[in-house]
């Protein structure tokens, strides 16, 4: 017998816009973002916090959206990969660096990695290469071998470019 709990209303700010949806308590934030809110740039990998594909920024800090429930997010501010490029689709400095350095192949892990470094570079604009590798340890990539990802991030660091345009309140 499958027991369903009543859905709860969840209102949050997604990439600068106030959005609302209904979620059963057990609905993971990943599924809420993808299926209820329709923002499919956030990917689902392992669903137990190991691969990092579903990383988004929750109230200013990068976190696994598979390790949070949608009902916990009422009133939260969430940023996903869709927030990085501008309205005309022009990629930001971090995304451009990924393209230039061939820091992705299939791209499945990329949106999560971009969100981790968006948070990390805001708080640490001038990290060492080792610190960048340490943050990247929270992600799995089966294509690149990681070296190009580290190069791309270090390129942004060395250029002192702002890691992303300001999307407003965080």
């Amino acid at each position, binding site marked *: 017998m*499958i*027991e*369903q*709990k009543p859905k*709860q209303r969840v209102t949050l700010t997604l990439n600068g816009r106030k959005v609302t949806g209904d979620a*059963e*308590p*057990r609905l*993971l934030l990943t*599924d809420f973002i993808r299926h209820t809110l329709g923002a499919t740039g956030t990917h689902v990998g392992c*669903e*137990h*916090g*190991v691969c*990092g594909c579903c*990383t988004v920024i*929750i109230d200013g*800090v*990068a*976190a*696994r959206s*598979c*390790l*949070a*429930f949608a*009902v*916990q997010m009422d009133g939260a501010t969430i940023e996903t990969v869709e927030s990085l490029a501008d309205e005309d689709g022009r990629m930001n400095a971090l995304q451009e660096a990924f393209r230039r350095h061939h820091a992705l192949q299939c791209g499945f892990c990329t949106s999560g990695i971009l969100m*981790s470094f968006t*948070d*990390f570079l805001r708080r640490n604009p001038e990290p060492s290469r080792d610190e960048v590798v*340490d*943050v990247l*340890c*929270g992600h799995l990539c089966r294509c690149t071998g990681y070296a190009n990802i580290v190069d791309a991030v270090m390129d942004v660091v060395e250029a002192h470019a702002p890691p992303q345009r300001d999307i407003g309140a965080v």
Partner: protein
Amino acid sequence: MKPRSFEYLRPASVDEAVEALARYGDDARILAGGQSLIPMLNFRLLEPLALVDIRHIADLSHIRLDGDMLEVGAAVTQNRLLSWPDLARHVPLLAIAMPWVGHFQTRNRGTVCGSIAHADPSSEIPLSLAMLGGEVVLQSPRGRRVLKADEFQTGMLSTAREADEMIVAVRFPTGSGKAAFREVARRHGDYAIVAVGAVSLSPSEILVGIGGAADRPVVRRYASNGGDLMSEIEALAWELETYEDLHASQRMRRDLVRRLAPAVISELRS
């Protein structure tokens, strides 16, 4: 890979939270950062009827020096404690062990007390608490009680917490000496296969703590300049009641202790 249905409760106070625990008994779990709990729910290793979310309870978000203890509330994330500017001065062991706790992304949500509550034998925070002889503050509708780290953690993923109790804070003794810490995991940030820490207690005495080798942290006190310290470490590695899993055999765990402990001790002496 989706959790079973549960009731989601978001109490406004610790009193309301422990009332909910008393009502549901063993069928409720505290949800703080969720970084250990939610994987277990997703795998359906745990199927609680209710989750009690305590992240928003204001009384639980403190990092406070209290006498010779550093008290950390149950809603404090690991990265918040790690970026507390006085950590290295007051609890040097935590400052060097905590960068090994999970990944940057999980430390952003995972809590200090949650790691203690989860009581994984290879976790760095329970190991640090055991080494320093810290305390766990528990609250229930019956009141508060304080347990020493070694009274609290009773085995692999098991603790002395009663069903209607929640951890409201943990206390780390301050003022311990120089510390060193190393571990081996398949990927930095994954659960340690074996973790070893050492703390200098006085010019003549050191503390060695081992995680991941037995069902809970193992802590030993040694004379730091005794000539046979290394043979005592060697004997300890063979005495440990260790275990075998997917990641390592018992023999590999013993060998990791034999390699890591001397390295950590010599780092402490340098």
